[in-house]
């Protein structure tokens, strides 16, 4: 009898603790702590160019972003910053069919409808007539009823490789006045 009451009390406390833990919506502990991968990520997102002309690199960078369909949101050349974004309809027929099939068996499957990619490009003089260019991307995806289903950084190496290949070409084209 006593054991049963003790068990019920413990269970009650456990449920209460779980509810309180779920209610905790504060900032994650490590949100503003440099991660162990920070240096590796920085290298992935950065390339060094043999020039001290930041404006030239910013022009070349803006051109690559425009080539990729981005709209420029903000530019501050004195700090070497370009902010850009790109909106796209990402509705996929396969996903729509899958969602309909799953709906028949009562399983909800959110379909990606609209995505926004944000990019910030920052140049930084690093001496010896060299300038570092760093680009970072973030990605958000919404469903048709405006529910945010993806909200993340993009860190796939291929994205950065592709961007910097395009930037190198753009640097050449800008230098040639094209």
């Amino acid at each position: 009898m006593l054991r049963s009451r003790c068990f019920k009390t413990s269970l009650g406390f456990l449920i209460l603790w779980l509810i309180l833990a779920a209610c905790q919506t504060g900032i994650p502990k490590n949100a503003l702590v440099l991660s162990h991968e920070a240096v590796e990520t920085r290298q992935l997102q950065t390339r060094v160019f043999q020039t001290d002309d930041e404006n030239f690199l910013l022009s070349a960078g803006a051109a690559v972003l425009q080539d990729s369909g981005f709209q420029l949101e903000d530019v501050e050349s004195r700090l070497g910053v370009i902010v850009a974004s790109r909106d796209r309809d990402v509705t996929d027929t396969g996903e729509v069919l899958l969602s309909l099939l799953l709906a028949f068996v009562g399983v909800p499957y959110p379909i990606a409808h609209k995505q926004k990619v944000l990019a910030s490009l920052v140049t930084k003089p690093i001496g010896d007539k060299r300038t570092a260019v760093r680009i970072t991307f973030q990605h958000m995806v919404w469903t048709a009823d405006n529910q945010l289903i993806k909200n993340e950084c993009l860190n796939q190496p291929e994205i950065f490789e592709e961007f910097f290949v395009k930037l190198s070409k753009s640097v050449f084209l800008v230098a040639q006045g094209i």
Partner: protein
Amino acid sequence: MAKIALTLVWIVVMGLTIAGCASTQKNILATQESQLRLRTIQSRVFETGDSQQVLRVTLATLQDLGFVIDKANESLGTISGTKRSGYTLRMTVSIRPKGDHQIIVRSNAQYNLATVEDPEPYQQFFAALSKALFLDAQGVE
């Protein structure tokens, strides 16, 4: 009788609507912490007179922490960025000179829809910024 009841219900609904509107408007400038305490938590003094360097290092630190820069303005000394990692963390950093050899850096963060008023995240941010600047951050007196 029914007409009076209906009018009363209508007045109550209108009253609640107006009251709700007023309370959200009242909260526009409200914070949990006092203005002075919040400024102290969110500000540090750095022993340098080079505001351009502080702004550039702030940009790099925010990128290291996973932020994408939203806006930057050298004349005003302000930078805003957002970190998206399942959650949304917005941050604005502003700098202003204190004499010729010191710069006050102030940062304020918003986590999803709430203002961050806990000192720890700011301590972590300033630790990362100090490391990148090779300077010690002093509290604001």
